[in-house]
C-alpha cells in the first residue's frame, strides 16, 4: 500500500462511517455536526484530486451556508420530543435490504468499467494556470448559458423561500 492509497483509505473509511452516523443519529443537531465533519473530509478528497477551487467552494457553500441553514431551521423548530421518538418507519428492514441489493449491483458494475478517451486539461496544464483560472476559463466561455441559468435558479430559490416561509397577515 503506497502512501496515496493509505491516505485515500483513511478518507474513504472515515467518510463511510460519518455518513452512517449522519443518517442514524436520534438528535438532528448531532446529524448536522457529523455532516460538517463529513464535508471537511469531502473537501480533503477534492484537494487530493487537484481541485482546490472546488474544495474551497465546498467548504464555503456547503459547510458555511447550507449547514447553517439546517441548524437555523432545527433550532427554530425546537423539538424536545425528537429525542424519544421512534427513529425509523415501520418497515425499515425492507429499505435496508433494497439499498444493499442496489449497492451490490453497483459494485459489480464498477469492476467492468472501461476508461474513455482523455481530454486536454491535464494536471500540468491545470497547475500552470491555477485551478481557479482553469475552471473560470471553461465556465465563462463554453458554459456561459448554464451559468446564467444557475443565477436564475438562485433567484428563484431566494424569492420562493421568502414567499413560502413568510407569515401572512392574519396569522
Amino acid at each position, binding site marked *: 500500500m503506497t502512501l496515496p492509497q493509505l491516505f485515500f483509505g483513511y478518507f474513504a473509511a472515515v*467518510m463511510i462511517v460519518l455518513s452512517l452516523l449522519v443518517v442514524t443519529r436520534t438528535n438532528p443537531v448531532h446529524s448536522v455536526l457529523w455532516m460538517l465533519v463529513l464535508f471537511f473530509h469531502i473537501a480533503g478528497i477534492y484537494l487530493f484530486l487537484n481541485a482546490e477551487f472546488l474544495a474551497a467552494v465546498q467548504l464555503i457553500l456547503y459547510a458555511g451556508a447550507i449547514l447553517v441553514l439546517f441548524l437555523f431551521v432545527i433550532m427554530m423548530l425546537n423539538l424536545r420530543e425528537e429525542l424519544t421518538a421512534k427513529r425509523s*418507519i415501520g418497515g425499515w428492514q425492507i429499505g435496508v435490504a433494497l439499498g444493499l441489493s442496489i449497492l451490490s449491483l453497483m459494485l459489480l458494475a464498477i469492476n467492468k468499467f472501461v*476508461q474513455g478517451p482523455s481530454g486536454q486539461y491535464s494536471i500540468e496544464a491545470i497547475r500552470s494556470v491555477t485551478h481557479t483560472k482553469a475552471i473560470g476559463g471553461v465556465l465563462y466561455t463554453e458554459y456561459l448559458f448554464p451559468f446564467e441559468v444557475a443565477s436564475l435558479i438562485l433567484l428563484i430559490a431566494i424569492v420562493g423561500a421568502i414567499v413560502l416561509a413568510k407569515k401572512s397577515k392574519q396569522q
Partner: protein
Amino acid sequence: MVPLNWYIGLSAVMFIIGVVGFLVRRNIIIMLMSIELMLNSVNISLVAFSHYLQDLRGQVLVFFIITVAAAEAAIGLAILVSMFRNKPEVHMDQITEMKG
C-alpha cells in the same frame, strides 16, 4: 496511484447510505440531509472522473450541482417551515391528510 474504481466505489457506498437514510428515517430534516449526502456522493464521483480523464467539464458540472443543491435545500427548508406552521409535526409518517 489510487485506482479510479475506488473513488467510484466510495461514491456508490455513500449514495446508497443516503438512499437508505431517505427511505427509512421519519424525521424530515434527516431526509433532507440524506438528499444532500446523495448529491455529495455524485460530486465525488464527478471530480474523480474529471481528474482521471483529464477533463475539466466534470468539475464545472460539480459547480452547478452545488448551486442547485443549495437552492433546493433552501426551498425544502422553507416548505418544511410553512408546513410546520400548519401542523407542528416533523415526522413524515404522521402527515396523512392527502391519503386515500
